[in-house]
């Protein structure tokens, strides 16, 4: 059963011209409700974090936002458009304006990192081959992988695969990037480097990031705003500035999460 609204730490911010807008989202697999009535908006240029414990539906929510799943109920607008309703060329155009970094990197094993990054450019732009290669080298340089451009995914570490995944997601310079667990399983130094990269890209390129993570340090380092999902509550139990939530949360699960206490 969902928590009573007054228990939750939801400090909703009204966003003008939101890049992502989720309204009353409910997701159920058969009779099993994962979450219900999830509503939030993401502002242009901010780093928005979706957080929560294991199994609360963070990754499912991400897949709803990028149109891989259909919500059982509710509406999603991405860059002002309804991704679920968009078909054909309109859908293709909308998809070219968002990038996704998958948890494992999801790089194509038969292609070098450079070819992985060049693939979206080949599909969506009219750049000549030499230009595509030049642009792909810039993206790999941005994530610090210039010297690994000719390596296959099987020849690089997990951290490098995640960075290459970000480079590929950024191939078309989309205004909106979704990152699924970018720092999971990485050492603190690599993880901090990735956090810095996200902040730099948001600042310099004005990219909006929607990041799914449960890494507390990353959340506090990069998050402008966040929402927290909870398995027991079957929905959102917090929304706001992660640092504010850390210091002033009243909901016991939110407090436990930010203070790293056993629930």
């Amino acid at each position, binding site marked *: 059963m969902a928590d009573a609204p007054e228990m939750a730490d939801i400090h909703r911010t009204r966003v003008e011209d939101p890049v992502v807008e989720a309204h009353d989202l409910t997701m159920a697999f058969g009779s099993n409700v994962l979450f219900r009535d999830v509503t939030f908006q993401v502002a242009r240029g901010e780093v928005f974090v979706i957080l929560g414990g294991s199994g609360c539906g963070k990754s499912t929510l991400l897949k709803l936002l990028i149109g891989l799943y259909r919500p059982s109920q509710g509406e999603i607008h991405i860059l002002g458009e309804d991704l679920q309703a968009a078909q054909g060329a309109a859908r293709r155009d909308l998809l070219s304006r968002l990038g996704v970094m998958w948890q494992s990197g999801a790089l194509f094993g038969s292609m070098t990192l450079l070819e992985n990054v060049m693939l979206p450019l080949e599909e969506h732009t009219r*750049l000549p081959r030499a230009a595509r290669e030049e*642009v792909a080298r*810039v993206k790999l340089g941005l994530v610090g992988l210039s010297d690994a451009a000719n390596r296959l995914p099987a020849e690089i570490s997990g951290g490098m695969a995640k960075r290459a995944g970000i480079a590929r997601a950024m191939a078309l310079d989309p205004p909106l990037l979704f990152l699924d667990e970018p720092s999971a399983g990485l050492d603190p130094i690599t993880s901090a480097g990735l956090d810095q990269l996200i902040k730099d890209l948001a600042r310099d390129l004005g990219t909006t990031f929607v990041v799914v993570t449960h890494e507390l340090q990353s959340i506090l380092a990069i998050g402008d705003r966040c929402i927290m999902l909870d398995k027991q509550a079957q929905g959102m139990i917090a929304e706001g500035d992660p640092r504010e939530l850390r210091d002033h949360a009243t909901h016991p699960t939110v407090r436990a999460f930010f203070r790293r206490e056993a629930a």
Partner: protein
Amino acid sequence: MGETVEQAGFDRQGETLCLRGALVTRQVGPIWDAVMKAARGVRRVDLSGVSSLDTTGAALVLRSVAVAGEAQVEGASKPVAAVMERARTALAAPRPASGPDQLPLVAAVGAWGISLLQRLVVSTGFLGETVVMGAAVLRYPRRLRFNDLLRHLDEAGLRAFPLTLLLGTLIGVILAFQSSIPMRQFGAEIYIPPLVGISLVRELGPLVAAIILAGRTGSAFAAELGTMTVNEEIDALRIMGVDPMAMLVLPRLVAAMLVMPVLSLLMDLSGLIGMGVVMANLGFPPALVLNQLEQWLTLGGLVGGLGKSVIFGLAIAGIGCRSGLSAGRGPRAVGDAATAAVVGGIVATVVLDGLFAVLFYRLGW
């Protein structure tokens, strides 16, 4: 409803290349080549007319500066300059010295020879381990995992029966029809049953059964063990003190050796039935066909065929397991292992069959 952005454009004013509008990914493709042509020999690249810039646009600017020689970039607004600086830093990072496929010919041949040698060493080692494990199981039969053996018997044997029956019958029909044309010219159609029977029992039965086993089971063994290798499950077994040879390889080898004679026999019988149907069609009663078969087929031929099928099974399963266990990293490695298993299995079967042909000829079987 897509976002509207200002059109990207350029013009050359004397020694200055003026870029303007939104230099973003969607816009720079059509003008890239023209900008490069215009950039030749300019001394300045003016960005004062650029309203927005992303890293693809920055790549265009940096490339045009490189094409120009030593051109000065000027007039960039603060956000444009920030993106330019990021892209410049990104491109300045050291690139790989050479691509993966740029080895000189001699070095490439050497590398190929070394990898061949390494594969040979791995295969020899695998063969040695298999012999040792086989000897150990003969001494301590409990080391063979019977539940796994039953599962593999089911997957490699029972589930291959329908395909074997279908292919066997069709091969019998095809052989009988094809041989009936020249045989009829000599009035020797009565010899079709021994011709097809001997071909099937001594050669085609074991050979086609082996090809089925290599395609269905050898590849499955390689893919399954290859996935386990990629997922570090084999390493986990070794660290737990469990011998992967005993747990994973041996049941598969034994299962393949046990199912192969059965599949060969099934192939032989279904082929003979197919041939019998054709013969009946040609006007030869079943009793006459059976009489011919009884007269020409020998127990030695049947036992020889079934005996070599056991060795085929051992070779196919061994190659499949070895390919899986020596798989590299990544999903591609699993595909490579499965391909190597099928190709290696079929080649090994044909080579072994050739050796058996020489052996049986010498023995007078």
